[in-house]
C-alpha cells in the first residue's frame, strides 16, 4: 500500500464531511454504549458481589470444622490473639472480624414485664470499634454508643418487638459453652438499623469480651470473617490463610464454598449480564454494519467514476476498506473517550435506576441480609474498551467490504448511470 | 424598470467553494434580458454560463451585486420566495437527468403542476401540453423508454406546462445529435414566436447560437460581448 492511498483516503473523508461525520457518529455511538453498558454491568456485578459477601459472609470464613453443622457454643477457634496476629501478617487482608454467636432469649430488662414476652434473639459478639467501619455490622453507630463492657447494641426489629429504647436494659437468657444456664442484663447503648438483616431482626450485639464472658469462653471465637481487597481473590486468600501456623485444623472457607447458593446467584448474574451485553453488542454491530453498508452502496456512482478514470478494481476496494478502517478507528476513539467519561461521571454520582424504572427504594427490606438500594455505580474496565475497539472496528470494515467487492466488479459506465 | 425587462443584472459576482478551493465563477456581470428574447449565453467551459443561469433561475444565491428577476430582488428573496418564483414563473431545462425516471412523460409534467397546486385538471392539462408539442406518443412512456432527444423535448414540455414567463435551458443540446438538436430548437423557437415565451440558453453549440437572436459572450466570469443578430430561419433545413 503506497502512502498515497492513505492520503487519498484521508482527503476523501475530509471532502465528504457529512458522510464522514455520520459514519463516525454511528460508530462512536456504538462504542460509547458498549463501554458505558459494560461499565454499568461491571459496577452492578461488583455491587452484588460486595452485597452478598458483605459484613456477614466476608471473603473468607474461618471456623471450627464442626461449628457450621452443630452450632454448639463450645466449638471454637482458640488462641484468638495469635490467630488474629497471624492473619494481620498477610498483605492481602483488609479487615479481620472475630465473631461469637449464640442463640438466646431476650426480654425487656424491666422486671415488671411477663417472662412470656421473651423473644428469640442472638448474641453477636464482635470487635465493636472495628465493626463501625464501612461494611461492618455496626456501620454508622457513633463511638460513644458502642456496647462497651456492660452494654449492648440491639437490632431495630428486635428492639421494636421488646419495646426497648436506649438507656433501658435488656435481659439475655441462654446457655454457656458448658451448657449451664446463664442470664445477664445489659444496658441498651443504641438501637441499630444494621445493613445485616439478621442483626436487625435478632441481634444483641456485645463486645467480644462480654460475649466470651457470658458463654464462659476464653480467648475463643466461633468465626473469623476476613475481607481481602477483592472478593474474586477469595480462593487465593483462603489458601494463604490455611498456610498460617495458628490456623492449622481450622476450617477456612472462601465465600463460594461457605455459601454455595450465593455463588450460584453471583454466577447467575454473571450469565445474565453476559446475555444483555451480547444483545447490546448485536444491536451496536447491526447499526454500524447497516450504516456502513448503506453508505458504501450509495457511492456506486463515485466508484464508477474512479473505475472509468482507470483505477484498478483492487485499488478501489482497498480505498473503501481503508476508509472504513479510518472511520472505524476515529469512531472508536471518540466512542471510547465518551464512554469512559460517562462511566467515570456516573461512577461518581451513581445511576438511580430505581427512579428510572419507577421504583422507590424499599427502605426496610433486606435481601441477602443487606438492605437494598436501587443505585448502581458503573466501573471502568479497560478490557471492555479494547474489546469494543476490536469488535466495532472489525464490524465497520467487514460491513464496507461486501459493497466494495461488488463495486469493484462493476462496469464503469453502468456504475455511473446508476 | 422597463416593463419588458425581465432580468436585470448589475455587477453580479458569484464565488463558491468546493472543498478547499474558492471558485470565482462570475466576476461582475451586467446585462438585461427583455421580454420575448431568444438569447444564447456562450463562452468556454468555466466561463460561468451555468452559474449565471443558476442565479437567474433562483437556484443559487448572488455573492455581490444586484440581480432582479421578474421584479424580484434576488438578494432580498429568501429560499421560500425563490422556490415560489421557480414554481410559478420560471421553467428550467437541464442538460441531462431532466426527467424523473420512475414517472411517465405525462406524470412528469403533472408533477410540476401538482407542485403548483393544480387539482384534478392536472392530467388533462399535462396531456394537452404534450399534444401541443407533438409529443402525445410519449405520454405513457417512461424516460428509460425514450431517446435522449425525446427526453429533452418532454423536459421542455414540463418546463412550459406551468406557463412560466422565462425559460432557462442549460446546455440543452449537449447530449443530442444534429437532428434531435434541430427539432428541439425549433420547438423552442415556435414557443417563443407563438406564445411569446422568453428563452435564455447557455451553450457552446453553434447550432443553438445560430437560432439565437441575441448572443451574450462570457469570458472568465465577465461579459465580453453582447450583440443582437439575425437568427437562422426556422423553416430552413
Amino acid at each position: 500500500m503506497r502512502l498515497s492511498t492513505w492520503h487519498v483516503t484521508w482527503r476523501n473523508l475530509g471532502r465528504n464531511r457529512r458522510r464522514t461525520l455520520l459514519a463516525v457518529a454511528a460508530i462512536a455511538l456504538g462504542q460509547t454504549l458498549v463501554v458505558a453498558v459494560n461499565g454499568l454491568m461491571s459496577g452492578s456485578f461488583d455491587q452484588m458481589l460486595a452485597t452478598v459477601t458483605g459484613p456477614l459472609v466476608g471473603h473468607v470464613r474461618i471456623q471450627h470444622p464442626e461449628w457450621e453443622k452443630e452450632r454448639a457454643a463450645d466449638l471454637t477457634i482458640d488462641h484468638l490473639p495469635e490467630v488474629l496476629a497471624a492473619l494481620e501478617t498477610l498483605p492481602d487482608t483488609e479487615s479481620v472480624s472475630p465473631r461469637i454467636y449464640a442463640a438466646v432469649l431476650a426480654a425487656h430488662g424491666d422486671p415488671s414485664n411477663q417472662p412470656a414476652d421473651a423473644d428469640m434473639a442472638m448474641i453477636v459478639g464482635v470487635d465493636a470499634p472495628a465493626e463501625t467501619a464501612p461494611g461492618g455490622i455496626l456501620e454508622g453507630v457513633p463511638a460513644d454508643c458502642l456496647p462497651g463492657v456492660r452494654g449492648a447494641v440491639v437490632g431495630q426489629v428486635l428492639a421494636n418487638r421488646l419495646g426497648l429504647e436506649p438507656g433501658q436494659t435488656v435481659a439475655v437468657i441462654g446457655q454457656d459453652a458448658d451448657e449451664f444456664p446463664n442470664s445477664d442484663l445489659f444496658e441498651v447503648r443504641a438501637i441499630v438499623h444494621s445493613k445485616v438483616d439478621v442483626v436487625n431482626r435478632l441481634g444483641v450485639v456485645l463486645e467480644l469480651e462480654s460475649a466470651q464472658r457470658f458463654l464462659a469462653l476464653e480467648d475463643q471465637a466461633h468465626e473469623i470473617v476476613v475481607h481481602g481487597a477483592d472478593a474474586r481473590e477469595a480462593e487465593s486468600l483462603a489458601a494463604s490463610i490455611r498456610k498460617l501456623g495458628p490456623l492449622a485444623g481450622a476450617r477456612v472457607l472462601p465465600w463460594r464454598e461457605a455459601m454455595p447458593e450465593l455463588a450460584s446467584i453471583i454466577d447467575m448474574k454473571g450469565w445474565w449480564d453476559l446475555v444483555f451485553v451480547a444483545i447490546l453488542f448485536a444491536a451496536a454491530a447491526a447499526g454500524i454494519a447497516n450504516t456502513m453498508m448503506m453508505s458504501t452502496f450509495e457511492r456506486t456512482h463515485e466508484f464508477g467514476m474512479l473505475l472509468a478514470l482507470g483505477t484498478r478494481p483492487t485499488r478501489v476496494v482497498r480505498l473503501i476498506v481503508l476508509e472504513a478502517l479510518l472511520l472505524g478507528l476515529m469512531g472508536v476513539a471518540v466512542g471510547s473517550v465518551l464512554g469512559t467519561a460517562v462511566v467515570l461521571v456516573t461512577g461518581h454520582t451513581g445511576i438511580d435506576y430505581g427512579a428510572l424504572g419507577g421504583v422507590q427504594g424499599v427502605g426496610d427490606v433486606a435481601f441477602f441480609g443487606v438492605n437494598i438500594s436501587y443505585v448502581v455505580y458503573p466501573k471502568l474496565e479497560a478490557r471492555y474498551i479494547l474489546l469494543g475497539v476490536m469488535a466495532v472496528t472489525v464490524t465497520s470494515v467487514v460491513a464496507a467490504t461486501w459493497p466494495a467487492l461488488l463495486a469493484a466488479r462493476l462496469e464503469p459506465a453502468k456504475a455511473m448511470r446508476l | 424598470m422597463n416593463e419588458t425587462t425581465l432580468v436585470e443584472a448589475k455587477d453580479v459576482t458569484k464565488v463558491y467553494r468546493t472543498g478547499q478551493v474558492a471558485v470565482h465563477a462570475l466576476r461582475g456581470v451586467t446585462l438585461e434580458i427583455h421580454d420575448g428574447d431568444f438569447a444564447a449565453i456562450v463562452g468556454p467551459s468555466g466561463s460561468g454560463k451555468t452559474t449565471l443561469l443558476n442565479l437567474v433561475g433562483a437556484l443559487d444565491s448572488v455573492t455581490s451585486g444586484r440581480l432582479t428577476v421578474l421584479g424580484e430582488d434576488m438578494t432580498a428573496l429568501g429560499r421560500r420566495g425563490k422556490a415560489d418564483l421557480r414554481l410559478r414563473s420560471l421553467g428550467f431545462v437541464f442538460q441531462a437527468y431532466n426527467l424523473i425516471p420512475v414517472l411517465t412523460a405525462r406524470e412528469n409534467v403533472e408533477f410540476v403542476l401538482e407542485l403548483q397546486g393544480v387539482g384534478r385538471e392536472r392530467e388533462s392539462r399535462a396531456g394537452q401540453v404534450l399534444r401541443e408539442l407533438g409529443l402525445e406518443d410519449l405520454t405513457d412512456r417512461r424516460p428509460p423508454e425514450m431517446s435522449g432527444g425525446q427526453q429533452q423535448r418532454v423536459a421542455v414540455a414540463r418546463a412550459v406546462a406551468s406557463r412560466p414567463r422565462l425559460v432557462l435551458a442549460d446546455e440543452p443540446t449537449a447530449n443530442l445529435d444534429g437532428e434531435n438538436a434541430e427539432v428541439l430548437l425549433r420547438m423552442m423557437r415556435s414557443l417563443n414566436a407563438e406564445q411569446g415565451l422568453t428563452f435564455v440558453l447557455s451553450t457552446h453549440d453553434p447550432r443553438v447560437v445560430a437560432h439565437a437572436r441575441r448572443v451574450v459572450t462570457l469570458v472568465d466570469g465577465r461579459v465580453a460581448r453582447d450583440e443582437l443578430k439575425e437568427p437562422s430561419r426556422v423553416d430552413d433545413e
Partner: protein
Amino acid sequence: MIGPVSVKYAVRGMFRHLRRTILSVIGVGIGVAIGQFAASWMGGATEMQIRAASESGAGHLRVVPAAWPETRENSLRLTDWRKALRAVKRLPGVRLAAPRARATGLLAFGNRTAGVEVTGVEPAAERASNRIVARSRLQGRYLSEGDAGVTVVGAALAERLDTDLDDDLMVTLSGKDGIRSAMLRIVGILSTGSRDLDTSLCHVTLPEHGRLTGREGGGEIAVLLEDYRRVERARRTLADQMPPGDLVVTWEVVNPAIAANVKGDTAFTRFIVFIVVVMVVLGIASAQLAVVLERRREFGVLMALGMRGRQVVSLLLIEAVLTGLAGAAVGLMIGGPVTWLLATKGVDFSELMGGEVAIENVLLDPVVYGSFGPWLIWYALGVSLAATLAAAVYPAWFAVRTDPAEALRTV
C-alpha cells in the same frame, strides 16, 4: 402536503432502487428483531422470579387473616378456612390451593436444640404447590393425610440435631394457652440443597398442627394461578368472596424481599433494554440517513423544479413510513420465531448453575421463558417507525438551508 404524483414518485422510486430499499428494510428488520428479543427476555426474567417465589410456597396470592400483613403473627388463624378454601378452588384460573398453619418453636433431641417454624400442611396440596417439597431429595417419605405424631424435617436441621429417620423429637411451641410440648417422629428428611431452607423446615399435617398449638384450622391459604399476570384481577375477585376478617394479598406482600428484588431487577433490566432500544433506533436512523445524504443531488433536482423543503420532507416521511412498516414486518418475521422459541422452549441455565438455586427461602428454577404476545407487533411498529421517522428529520433541517444549485453541485 404533497399530492398523488409525488407519492407515486416516492413509491416507484423505492422500487427502482430495489437493492437500497431491500437493504434498508432488512436493516430495520434486524434492528427491530434485536429489540424485540431484548424486551421478551426482560419479561422472561421477571416471570422467572415470580414463578420462583410463587411456587416456593408464597403462591401468587395468599389468603391471610386481616391482621397478618401488619404483625406477621403466625398465631393468627383464618375466620373460616374451609369456606375460604372452597371459594378459592371455585375461582377460574386457579391451579392449586394449599392451606397452612405456622408456629415458631423449638425442636430438641438429646441436648441439642434448634429453633424452627413448624408448618402444618395438607400433604397432597403441599407436594403439588411447593417446589421446595416437590423437588428436594427425600429420605423416608413425605407426610400423608391422616398422619399423626410425625414430622418431615430439613436435612441440615436433622444434622444440627444429630437425628435421623425414626428418631423422636421433642417440639416446644407457644400455643393457645401457654407453652406446649409434644413428641414427633421423623418420617422424612428433605434435602433442598439450601442450608437456609433446610434448617427451618419442619412439616406436620394441618390437623396435627392444630393439636400441637391448640389453634385449629389454617392460618393461610397459598393460591397458585395459571397466569401470573392475572394476579391483581384474581385478587380482587377472590377478596370479594372472603369472609370478613380475611384478606387476600399478593406474593409481593408475602415476600417483600423477593418483591423488592424483582422490582429492582426489572428496573435495572428495563434500563438496559432501554439503552438497547436507543441503540437500535439510532442505528437504523443512521443507516437511513446515510442513504439520504447520498440523495442530495436528487433533492436538488426536486427543489429546482419548485419543490419546497417542507415538501421534500413530506416525501421522505412517506418513504420513512413505508420503510418502517415493511421493516416492522420483516422484524416480526425474523424475531417472531426466535421470540416464540424463547417463550416456549426457554433458555435453561440450570446446566451452568448446577441445578436449582435457592435465594432467600425461594427455590429458583433457572429457566427463562421469554414473553410473547400481541405486544410484539406494537413494539415492532413503534421501534421501526421511531427510527425511520427520526432519520427523516435531518433532511428537514438540511433542505431548509441549502440552495438547489449547491445540492446539484454535489458530486
